[in-house]
């Protein structure tokens, strides 16, 4: 099913005995055609995968009366749904967006601080034979509901209910296993020679970690950051249970549009669109790191 149409290597090209110019252009044209057909297929795939989001964009611009023509574009596009999703409906969405942002960013920070040194210690320094780190992975097997009451009680007694900090801690709990899985994979792939060499040169563990390991791990760290941000941004259950008015994230705020009168499809679609932009933006921002981190790393290696 996969079309492995690579650009012809120098070997293949020189291997084909031909001196005619038209053959050259034909080959180039065939190559261009192959590449463009790959693009076309990619466009089709991403179109199919994004049908819900594309539909959300369409619906978010339609006034309620035009909901019954699902395949047509809005005849009188309106921005009222976006206005509602940003607070015009009376729900404090600007605060919800800010909360989600702070919670997600905070979780990324806390996760990186906690897991990077600990994974290195566990897997490379054999701290506790790596058991602490790997047993945490098992946490992911529990549905979030299992933690609902314990965390609620804990936060109630420590005054962390309805705070952004509390939700950062809760989301860190949820994302620890994911971060550890990805980091373990990354750390285990590190070539040990460089660290050996640095240690022989007398560098301390901390120096090695900071100056050598972390830079090489950059793409993994970016992946952890992006995915942690994403899962925290999209988290619902803890947001619901632990927040009430101050620290409500958007996912919980969105539930305001699911009313006992019915579902405000237009407003929810607008909110879905807006809500996806942020993690996407974070991913684009981080992708720069990803790309640059990898190429430089490869050269270094």
């Amino acid at each position: 099913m996969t079309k492995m149409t690579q650009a012809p290597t120098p070997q293949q090209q020189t291997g084909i005995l031909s001196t005619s110019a038209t053959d050259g252009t034909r080959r180039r044209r065939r190559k261009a055609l192959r590449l463009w057909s790959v693009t076309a297929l990619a466009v089709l795939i991403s179109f199919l995968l994004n049908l819900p989001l594309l539909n959300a964009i369409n619906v978010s611009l339609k006034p309620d009366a035009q909901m019954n023509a699902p395949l047509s574009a809005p005849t009188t596009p309106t921005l009222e749904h976006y206005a509602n999703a940003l607070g015009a409906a009376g729900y404090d969405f600007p605060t919800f967006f800010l909360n989600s942002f702070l919670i997600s960013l905070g979780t990324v920070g806390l996760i990186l601080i906690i897991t990077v040194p600990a994974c290195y210690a566990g897997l490379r320094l054999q701290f506790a034979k790596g058991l602490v780190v790997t047993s945490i992975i098992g946490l992911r097997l529990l549905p979030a509901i299992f933690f609902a009451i314990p965390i609620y009680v804990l936060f109630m007694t420590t005054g962390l209910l309805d705070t952004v900090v509390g939700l950062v801690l809760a989301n860190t709990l949820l994302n620890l296993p994911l971060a550890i899985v990805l980091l373990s994979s990354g750390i285990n792939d590190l070539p040990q020679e460089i660290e050996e060499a640095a240690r022989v040169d007398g560098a301390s563990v901390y120096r090695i970690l900071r100056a050598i390991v972390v830079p090489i791990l950059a793409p993994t760290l970016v992946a952890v950051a992006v995915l942690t941000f994403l899962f925290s941004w999209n988290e619902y259950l803890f947001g619901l249970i632990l927040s009430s008015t101050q620290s409500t994230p958007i996912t919980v705020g969105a539930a305001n549009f699911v009313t006992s009168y019915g579902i405000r499809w237009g407003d929810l679609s607008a909110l879905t669109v807006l809500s996806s932009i942020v993690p996407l933006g974070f991913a684009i921002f981080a992708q720069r790191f990803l790309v640059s981190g990898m190429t430089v790393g490869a050269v270094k290696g």
Partner: protein
Amino acid sequence: MRTRKVIAATTCALLALGLAACSSGSKSDDAGPPSSQNVRMVMFPGPQGDALQKVVDNYNDTQGLKDNVQVQTVMLSRADTFGKEATQMAAKSSDIDLYFTASYIIGQQAPNLDPLTTVDESAYFDSSIEGLTVNGKLMAQPLNVSNTFLIYRKDLIEKLLDDPAEHKRYEAISQEVLGKALQPKAPDDWSWDDYTAAAAYFTKQYNPESPTKYGTALQAKNLSFNVMIWNDLLWSNGGNWIKNGKADLTSDAAEAAVNTYRTIYTKGLTSPDSSSAEFPETQAALQNNNAAFALQWSTAFNSLNDPKASPNIAGNMAIARIPGKLHSNHAHTQGFALNKYSKNKDGALTWLKFLNSEAAMTEFAAAGGIPASPGVLEANVANNPSFPYIADQIANYGFNEPIFSGTFQALGKLAASLSGAWVGEKPVKEALKDANSELTALLDQ
């Protein structure tokens, strides 16, 4: 270079964390003037919630200042409010002073609440007070009512009734689907057989000239609210959940009720997607000419006749009694209950007293709410054309499911046991037997 970037990013994240810690600390300072009592209550979003918010805002600006009480609403979605409240009750939390409750869950929540003794009960429907009374004590103050209607397309039904030729066709279809040759009747006088026959008449599969694709839009999703609608059939057939203190779901009335749903679904008188349908799906079906009538929540009516929301059918929808011998319609009441662990009971009770008044209820109705108050409903017909129907139907035909600690659970269990049978996936007798034993277990708990 990379290291610096990573460190920079992490520092940003930490700063954000720090900011967040500071900001959440400072925010709690502006929750009203420090000397007033801050009463926190939970509310559903939507038109009822919006209407109440207006009353709250007005109170905070006027009477609340005199009473030294400021009310803060915490909005949670219809699906999750009770889950969150359950968590808080289990943790004996003092975060909320007035829990949002309903007659179908008050029995479960009662051990965590204080009874209310100073409520003027005469202001409300009898069935509303009954619905919020547990073991003889009133546990919540009613706010609004929600009941079910038979909502139908006036234009299509009138056309059918006026045309003798169509009567013949109706008779033939009714024979085919039900085995009985019925004549069309006004919806207000329907039996469940009439409902089924009319649904068949308006289904294209049986009547290629039907103006709608299906006759009706059944709400057959595995959902507690759908059981409340199905209860209409059970009660109007003369049945009940409980008889002489014992579970009575294997009665003839119950069997007939399940069979009506089953016939409608398996004969294709409603869309096959009805197996996952509830309120919004039924709305969409009616709005798009894909159903001619349906059992639907009363709050739906206004938007169905609103040209901005339902351009295709606006002005053509009408309300009838629930079909069946007794025309029973489920009417649940929602209201506010006092948290046993609240630290602010005085403030909460002061606010509740204000809400109890006719002035407050009228304000609520004017803002779009449906108060549980027959007097206010009748006095405010101009605001909401469905008011007289609501008042009439609740007063004359309204019923509550038995209120006990297991009511909410029972709704969930019945949904799980019966929804399979509604869509023909499970044998009717077996489903009812399961439902009955679940209910028995709950009654014994």
